[in-house]
């Protein structure tokens, strides 16, 4: 294929190759030349070899051929009678060579930058003033001297400062393919490697195979990308209205470092005294409770055996205001732990209970777990035989325990203010103009030990609360501060690695992160139960859809606890939100054991909560529950989705490295280290792990 005269003029610096047989005596014109655009392909396919002395198009045009040459012959000087020497671009003097290189014309990927392509620095002030160019990032913008002769790795419009990232010759910062974003995603050896050269917004994404196919469904995470759009939006929003403070919640911490029994309940000098005969009163308070013991567990007792852990609760009481605002007092250093069996010694909970050596079965430091060093007021409740797996049994165990906690609350309420050791304030803000986001938390509602008491009078209490099963598991709107102030008293004990305890909500990391993220407007938290029966699951998710429709949201995050049956409503909840045009991110434990059983088209942005080494439920309390690192990923992914970014499909099987790569990318982008929560490998191996889950591993 020959080229036109205009093309020849444009391409005078390209190599000159004859397109067809050319007779001796021919004066070379454009029509004798092969299109330089295809020459690299010809070279690659060994049709052509370009010698070092190959002439340029600008040199051969008008020159007379001495010999006859065949098709696809590179022209070299000895074939011609007269060759005009082309002016080398380098001969043109480059002025202002230390000034920034800004493109004067639109250029395509693969084109070399010449002096003529660069904007005269005389215009910089006015162009910057007009916001048409930004030279503030002077470290990354090349100088005119550096830019000339370099090759662009992507298309760039005129009036763009030339940065290293768009230059082929700087491979470290070059994107692999064209495109206008500065991100680079390369698949290598089954691991999605993502590289961000620079950026402000980050996005995470964790993809999910949503097609149901032979049960081979897995969840994995991938993608990290920088969202330019988010940045744009952020710029726009600079002028948005000011933040509105909706309400505040203050927590006052009172330190207790010893728990003893005494004649009456009281707090004296950092010691909590519990009334000696309180247990009998607690037993008497509930018909189904036949016995109740309190064990005071100090760190020295962490190696003791415990029946299944049904809940971990803070001891807190309102000093001022209703739950969710005002002032709350909380004991620092002591938690209440509910454990129990039935009269026949059967653990409350069918399978997946967490009885065993405490320190081997608790993932310390998770939001819903105890901290190492804390004292547990552990109740060991015995309920009537056979009631441990029905609704009233576990409820009675919780209520009897709360009878004791309530007495401590009353003591705490009267405690002298001077004993307060620290304070923490939580502020619920609305951020008009920012993206409106809701957090939708799916909570267990199948009945029996899958229930939650909602909105008690006192934080994590039972008095005044209604069980969400009794409420029909319908969506309930609460404020983020209500969540943090203990509006959920959790009755969940099966599959403890992925169930959220009362303390989890009290320290809910996603709510905290979202509240504090000034790029989003957290409007509300919606609690929705997960009913037992499928038809009820769709009943509640439809109601959720209507509730969300009325909220004009820009984005939502749906979380769930546990795995398996609840994934049916999890998927349905996401669908109901997603089909109303609201970008939605799903957050669940999935990994290996919790592979999703259903899926739909809106489930394309998923965050996996797994922390276990094997991707399994290993009955370590709170191990696979939502932590701060997950919250960061979920919010980043939502921002990405809101910005309309594409979310990469996951690998077929679960691969923990994907998440780690994502975390790395976010760290690079934020310039901050994200603390990864440790997993069960930091614990001594429990009997169950040894005998059931990790038979191959030796006790560490």
């Amino acid at each position, binding site marked *: 294929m020959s080229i036109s005269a205009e093309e020849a*003029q*444009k391409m005078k610096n390209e190599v000159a190759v004859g397109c067809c047989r050319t007779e001796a005596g021919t004066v070379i014109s454009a029509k004798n030349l092969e299109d330089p655009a295809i020459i690299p392909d010809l070279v690659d396919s060994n049709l052509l070899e370009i010698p070092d002395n190959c002439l340029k198009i600008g040199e051969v045009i008008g020159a007379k051929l001495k010999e006859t040459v065949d098709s696809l012959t590179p022209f070299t000087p000895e074939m011609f009678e007269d060759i005009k020497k082309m002016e080398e671009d380098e001969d043109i003097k480059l002025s202002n060579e230390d000034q920034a290189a800004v493109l004067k014309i639109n250029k395509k990927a693969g084109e070399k930058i010449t002096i003529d392509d660069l904007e005269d620095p005389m*215009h910089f002030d*006015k162009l910057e*003033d*007009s*916001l*048409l160019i930004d030279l503030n990032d002077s470290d990354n913008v090349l100088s005119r001297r550096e830019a000339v002769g370099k090759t662009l790795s992507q298309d760039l*419009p*005129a009036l763009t400062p030339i940065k290293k990232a768009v230059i082929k010759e700087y491979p470290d910062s070059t994107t692999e393919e064209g495109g206008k974003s500065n991100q680079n995603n390369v698949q290598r050896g089954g691991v999605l490697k993502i590289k961000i050269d620079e950026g402000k917004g980050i996005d995470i994404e964790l993809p999910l195979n949503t097609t149901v196919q032979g049960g081979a469904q897995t969840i994995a995470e991938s993608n990290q990308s920088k969202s330019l759009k988010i940045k744009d939006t952020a710029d726009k929003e600079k002028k948005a209205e000011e933040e509105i403070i909706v309400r505040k919640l203050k927590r006052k911490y009172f330190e207790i470092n010893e728990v003893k029994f005494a004649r009456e309940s009281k707090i004296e000098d950092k010691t909590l005294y519990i009334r000696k005969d309180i247990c009998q009163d607690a037993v008497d308070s509930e018909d189904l409770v036949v016995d109740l013991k309190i064990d005071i567990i100090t760190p020295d007792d962490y190696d003791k055996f415990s029946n299944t852990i049904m809940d971990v609760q803070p001891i807190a009481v309102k000093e001022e205001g209703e739950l969710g605002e005002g002032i709350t007092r909380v004991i620092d250093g002591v938690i209440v732990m509910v454990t129990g069996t039935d009269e026949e010694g059967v653990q409350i909970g069918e399978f997946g209970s967490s009885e065993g050596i405490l320190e081997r079965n608790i993932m310390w430091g998770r939001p819903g777990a105890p901290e190492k060093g804390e004292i547990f007021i552990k109740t060991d409740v015995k309920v009537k035989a056979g009631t441990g797996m029905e609704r009233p049994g576990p409820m009675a165990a919780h209520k009897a325990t709360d009878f004791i906690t309530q007495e401590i609350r009353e003591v705490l309420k009267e405690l002298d203010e001077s004993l307060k050791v620290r304070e923490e304030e939580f502020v619920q803000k609305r951020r008009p103009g920012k993206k409106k986001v809701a957090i939708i938390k799916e909570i267990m509602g199948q009945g029996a030990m899958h229930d939650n008491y909602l909105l008690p009078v006192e934080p994590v209490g039972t008095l005044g609360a209604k069980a969400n099963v009794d409420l029909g598991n319908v969506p309930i709107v609460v404020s983020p501060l209500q969540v943090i102030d203990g509006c959920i008293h959790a009755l969940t004990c099966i599959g403890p690695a992925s169930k959220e305890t009362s303390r989890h909500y009290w320290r809910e990391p996603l709510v905290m992160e979202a509240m504090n993220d000034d790029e989003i407007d957290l409007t509300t938290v919606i609690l929705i139960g997960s009913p037992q029966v499928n038809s009820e699951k769709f009943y509640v998710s439809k109601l959720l859809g209507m509730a969300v429709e009325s909220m004009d949201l820009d984005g939502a995050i749906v979380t769930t606890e546990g795995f398996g049956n609840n994934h049916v409503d999890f998927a349905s909840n996401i669908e109901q939100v997603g089909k109303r045009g609201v970008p939605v991110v799903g957050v669940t434990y999935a990994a290996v054991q919790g592979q999703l059983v259903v899926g739909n088209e809106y489930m394309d942005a998923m965050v996996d909560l797994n922390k276990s080494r094997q991707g399994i439920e290993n009955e370590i309390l709170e191990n696979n529950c939502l932590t701060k690192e997950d919250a960061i990923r979920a919010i980043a992914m939502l921002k990405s989705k809101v910005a309309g970014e594409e979310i990469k499909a996951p690998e077929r099987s679960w691969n923990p490295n994907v998440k780690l790569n994502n975390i790395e990318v976010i760290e690079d982008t934020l310039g901050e280290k994200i603390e990864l929560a440790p997993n069960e490998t930091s614990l001594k191996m429990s009997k169950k792990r040894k005998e059931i889950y990790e038979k191959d591993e030796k006790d560490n």
Partner: protein
Amino acid sequence: MDFKIPLKQHIGSLSKVIVNENFAVKRGQLIAEADGLGANIHASVSGKVKKITETEVIIESSQEVEKDDFLKLNKSDDYLEMIKEAGIVGAGGAGFPTHVKLNCELNNGFVIANCVECEPILNHNISLIEKDPTSIIRGIKYVMEITGAEEAYIAIKAKNKKAVKALEEKTSSENNIKVKKLRDIYPMGEERAIIKEIFGKWLEPDQLPLEVNSVVLNAETIFNISEAVEKRKPVIDKDITIAGKLNGEKTRVVKLRVPIGTPIKLLIEKAGGIKGDYGELIIGGPYTGKAVSLEEAVLTKVDGGALITLPFPEYTGPLGLLVCACGADEARLRDIAEKMGAEVVGVEQCKNVVENNGSLKCKTPGECPGQVEKIMKLKKAGAERVLIANCSDCSNTVMCCAPKLGIPVYHHTDHVFRTLNYPLTRRLKLDA
């Protein structure tokens, strides 16, 4: 070579052709007569009438054009008659028939020679003045005689020192011709802006300089008057500035006395040819010129510039347009927006724009009425950037608000000035 001579190079109606196809015509020969409001049109080259269409007469000419060889106009002592015969029209771009404009009595009035050449880049008027100041001065005197005006002003930008000096020297003995030096600001050459500078009074957009007992004529028009009166030469040549992406060392070439009907492409080739890719060809100045096809454009009596620009910067987002009477109209701005690839989401007119006989006029050219309201409206319409067509002062106002609102600003002259490394129209210096 073919010379296409348009039958309408002026305000008014098409001139009536008086030759037939295949007629031999001589340079200077009348080929079309004014029909109502209009002007005579003459052959600019000697040759054969190849074709006559509704809008043009095409003359095929093989001869080299001898500038001083032309068919002279009939002798007359009536200067106004000579002007009419010569087909003189406003050479600054408007094309109003000069014999109509000068058919007035200015007792105790003024002739104002507009030598401001306020469109940046264009330089053919100043070149002419530098080369031949006395023809201009004599031309002014003829106009004073025709109209009975007592005094004359030569309005010129102070920055054109050489031309100013030449005019001052040549008028030093003239009591009633004064040189009025003006600031370098666009649109200082607008008729009413000059009158404001000289008389301190704004005319309404629909008022003519006659309201202040004056006529305003462009430098080249006045030169053409001298030529008509003294050499009996009709308007067959035009001065033009060719500038932009040209090969060779010069990016701006002034050609004086080029035969009308010459293809613009030929002029550009003679000036070095287009260097590489180009954005568009503008006929006229950066502010008020229009983009035309390179293949079709020919030189007319009113064309002062042929500008070859850089390709447009790409911007594919939502764009707001701010139309101004002193710069580009809406059609022109839409044209530029389309060439950039932008999506026009809003169009606003500067508050000062008033419509007068189908064309846009500015109430107070060069004095800004405030722009923030318009910019806010464009922003509200969804514009993420704006393309403005304002004069120096109004552009300054835009620059004081749009960037603060986070709205980047393009000016419709940017691609011209960036081609020629001429300062962009943005903020004014505070001491200017």
